[in-house]
C-alpha cells in the first residue's frame, strides 16, 4: 500500500472550512444525496414544492437532516454527509445559481462573495492548514 488509509483521511481534517467527501460522509449522507438526486425529475420537483415535509417523510432521512434540508442549511448538510453536486439539485429547484448557493456557506452575503470572486477569489494564504496556520 502506498499510503496508509488512516493517515490519508486524517490529513483531510486539517483543511480549514472544508468537508472532504470521504466514504464515511458518503455513507452517512446516502439518503440525503439520493433524495436530492430525485429532484432531477420535474414531477418530483413539483411534488416536493407542494409539500416539502411530506416529500421528505418518504425517505429514510434523520429528523436532524430533514430539518437542515428544510432550512437549506448547507454547512450542516455537509456535516451530515451531503455532497454539493447532489445538493445542487435542491438549490436549482429553488432557482438559486451555484455561486449564490455556495455563498450561503461562507460568512459573506452573495454580493460580498461576488465581489471577492471578481477580485481574484479567496486567497489560499492562511487557508491551507489548521495546524500549520499557513
Amino acid at each position, binding site marked *: 500500500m*502506498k*499510503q496508509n*488509509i488512516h493517515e*490519508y*483521511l486524517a*490529513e*483531510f481534517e486539517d*483543511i*480549514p*472550512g*472544508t*468537508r*472532504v*467527501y*470521504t*466514504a464515511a460522509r*458518503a455513507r452517512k449522507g*446516502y439518503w440525503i*444525496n*439520493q433524495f*436530492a*438526486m430525485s*429532484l*432531477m425529475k420535474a414531477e418530483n*420537483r413539483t411534488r416536493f414544492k407542494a409539500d416539502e415535509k411530506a416529500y421528505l417523510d418518504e425517505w429514510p432521512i434523520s429528523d436532524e437532516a430533514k430539518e437542515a434540508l428544510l432550512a437549506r442549511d*448547507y*454547512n450542516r448538510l*455537509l456535516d451530515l454527509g451531503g*455532497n*454539493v*453536486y*447532489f445538493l*445542487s*439539485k435542491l438549490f*436549482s*429547484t429553488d432557482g438559486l*445559481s*451555484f*455561486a449564490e448557493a*455556495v*455563498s450561503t*456557506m*461562507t*460568512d459573506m452575503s452573495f454580493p460580498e*462573495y461576488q465581489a*471577492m*470572486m*471578481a477580485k*481574484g*477569489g*479567496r*486567497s*489560499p494564504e492562511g*487557508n*491551507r*492548514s489548521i495546524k500549520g496556520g499557513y
Partner: protein
Amino acid sequence: MARITAGVGSSHVPLLGVAVDQGKTGDDYFGPIFKGYEWTRQWERDTAKPDVVILVYNDHASAFDANIIPTFAIGCGEHYKPADEGWGPRNVPDVAGHADLGWHIAQSLILDDFDMTIINEMDVDHGLTVPLSMMFGTPDKWPAKVVPLAVNVVTYPVPSGNRCWALGEAIARAVESFPEDLNVQIWGTGGMSHQLQGPRAGLLNREWDNMFLDMLVGDSDAVRHIPHIEYLRETGSEGIEMVMWLVMRGALGKQTKCLHRHYHIPCSNTAIGHIVLEPVT
C-alpha cells in the same frame, strides 16, 4: 493505425455552457474567457480536425447517483444525450460515440491491468458538453465522435495522479493498436482551482494553477506525484478535478510541446485554465 495527435486541457464550468446557450460569449464578463479559446476553435476546425475525442471528465451526479461509484468508466455506446441537470437538457447536438474504438480501448485496458467499468447507455452532463462547446463552438452536429471516459473525483479516495497518468499511457497503447486509421485527440477536463463548499468556498490559486500548467509541458513527469492533499489545500476541494488532466498528459508520451495556453479568473466560483499540447516524438 489510430494515433493520438494532440491533448487538450480545459475547465468545464457549467456557467460556460449557459453563456454559449444564451449568446453571452462576447459580453464583458465572458468575453475574456471565450477569447482565450478562439485560437483552439480555429485550430480544431482548420488544422487538427480530429476524428475522435477521448473525453476525460467527471459526472456531477447526473448519470451516476450515490449508488454506484465507478473509479474509471468508459463509454462504449453509439450515442449519448445531453443530461437534464435540473433545469432541462442543454440545447446542443447529441454526442456520437465511437463504439468500435470504445470497446477496443476497454478490452485493451482490462488486459493491461486497468479494470474498467463499461457503460453502454448514459446521458452526459456539462462536464462533457461544455468542453465540446468551448472547442467546437455551436455546430449543428459535433465534428468529432467522442469516447467518454468518466473518472470519480467526488467520493474519496479518488484515483491518484500517478494512476491517472498511467491510465493515459495505457490508453495511448490501446489507441495505437486499433487497426483503423483515426486521428484521435484526448482531452482532460475540470478544474482549475475552485471550492464549492463550506466556509472556505471561493478559494482560487492563480500561482499554483499556473505551476500545474507549466508542469504539463516538456519531458518531466513530476506532476504525477502531487498528492491529493496538495490539490485540496492549494486549489480547493473541487480543484482535485485536475487529476483528470493527467490522464490526457500521460497519453501524450514522454515529451510535449505547448501550442496554446489560456488562464482567466474568475468564472462563477472557478478559475478557467486551458492548454493545447502536442506529443513530441
